[in-house]
């Protein structure tokens, strides 16, 4: 999982979704995740998953790579699925697809919205230590990930990690992590000095965008509302809608193929591939 590349995609994209405001995308993600956990219909879940994938493709992001990142929760979901085995493939499929759809939705949010903007959306609603901790963690993340990369390269170049020497590898990697921890603590001391110097008064201020709804905001809000409505309607009125809900994933698949065709025919995609 490369947090750095996710941040790059969020900051460098220029699609309608990238231009939409962070609060509208957070609300859209909340609506879609709410729709995912509300429904137990496989077709609805499939439709939501494919619709979110179509939106990611239309934002000119590497959808396959993002889908691969979003596949990680399936490992944990499989454990729950096996524990709930009732002789049918349907229950495990629903459990796994729920986790996949929710994860893909969060990735849609975070690959089109820089972390600080997401944090700024709910910064006012959390305690100071939590809000400021989120910003400082984001700030430290890339420094420490760079340090981790350097230490890993150094370990390999100096023979600290070699094939066949498993015990020695574990010991050397552990000491490498210890060195990383030391450098992280020194970083924390420098951060403290900088914060004192710059007059930190107990609250980091996040840059806020204009509060007016723009046309770009209607796109994620419309997506979130329609997917949540689909889920709610099929949950509340199954007898009426279930005969027709099988068309939903077909429609989502058509949207996905259309998005893929459009992006393929137009400008090149953002990202390192």
């Amino acid at each position: 999982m490369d947090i750095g590349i996710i941040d790059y995609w969020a900051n460098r994209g220029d699609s309608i979704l990238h231009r939409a405001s962070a609060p509208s995308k957070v609300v859209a993600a909340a609506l879609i995740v709410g729709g995912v956990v509300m429904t137990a219909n496989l077709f609805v879940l499939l439709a939501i998953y494919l619709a979110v994938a179509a939106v990611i493709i239309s934002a000119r992001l590497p959808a396959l790579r993002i889908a691969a990142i979003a596949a990680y929760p399936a490992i944990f979901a499989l454990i729950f699925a096996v524990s709930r085995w009732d002789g049918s493939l349907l229950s495990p499929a629903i459990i796994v697809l729920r986790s996949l759809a929710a994860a893909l939705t969060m990735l849609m949010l975070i690959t089109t919205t820089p972390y600080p903007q997401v944090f700024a959306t709910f910064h006012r609603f959390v305690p100071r230590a939590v809000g400021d901790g989120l910003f400082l963690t984001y700030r430290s993340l890339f420094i420490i990930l760079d340090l981790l990369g350097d230490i890993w390269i150094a370990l390999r170049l100096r023979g600290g990690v070699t094939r066949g020497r498993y015990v020695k590898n574990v010991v050397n990697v552990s000491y490498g992590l210890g060195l990383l921890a030391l450098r992280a603590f020194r970083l924390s001391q420098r951060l403290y000095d900088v914060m004192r110097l710059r007059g930190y008064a107990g609250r980091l201020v996040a840059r806020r965008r204009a509060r007016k709804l723009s046309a770009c905001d209607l796109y994620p809000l419309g997506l979130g509302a329609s997917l949540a409505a689909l889920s709610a309607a099929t949950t509340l009125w199954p007898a009426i809608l279930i005969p027709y809900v099988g068309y939903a994933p077909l429609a989502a698949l058509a949207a996905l193929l259309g998005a893929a065709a459009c992006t393929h025919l137009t400008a090149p995609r953002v990202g390192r591939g």
Partner: protein
Amino acid sequence: MSHIHIPDGVLPLWIILIGWVITGGLLLVASRRLVGEELTRRLPLLAVMATLMVGAQSVVLPPIGYHLNLTALSGIILGPALGIIAAFIVNLILAMVGHGGITVVGLNTLVFGAEMALGYYLFRGLRGALRGRLGVGLAAGAATLLSLLAGTLLMIAVVAASAVSPGWQMPHGPETLVLPNPFGEPTVIGRPEEADRGVSAQVQVGRFAILVLFLGLIGWPLEAIVTGLVARYLGSVWPDLLEPEGVQARRSR
């Protein structure tokens, strides 16, 4: 893997809400301890420890998805109050990149926080009995092993509680799936009788516990060894980090 991140859509709404309420309360209590100069002083350390945990958990070994946690080590360094804040930050960031559920951040935070708090107290307790540089590593390793076991047992307890009352709509049994056919009769798959009765496929807690404990028994010793070695390294280079000066002075008398 040394512990499981609960994904979205597997637990009922009522238990998810309880998780959020308890986590919110603990965050408020912990935050009240961090004001003014104390906040400025401790916040950077909290941020870098949260970063180390995020970094460790973002390095995944295929195919089982195993990764290090560093929860016990972070708990030893941060303590329980800062630990719960760091646990929340880590779970929120990981949920945003699809590593664990976003609706269950509250519950995952409680599991992490329990591991960190136990890691802290167990290390302090064991350190009293185990002296010397080797003692630091052994105490940290043993604290890690026990705290990860406790965290997993807590998660099993949460899942067991959810099985008692699966709740309103989440999760409920698979509804009848109908493959539409615009030219003729639709094909029905699924189990209509169960859909009509609203039966939910409940978690078999025993089966779940066996699976999770089996996977944990592979990961916990490895995490305990790594944490012990890291603690031994830190103990020899920067002892104050793991043990305040007063504790060291008392131990050396």
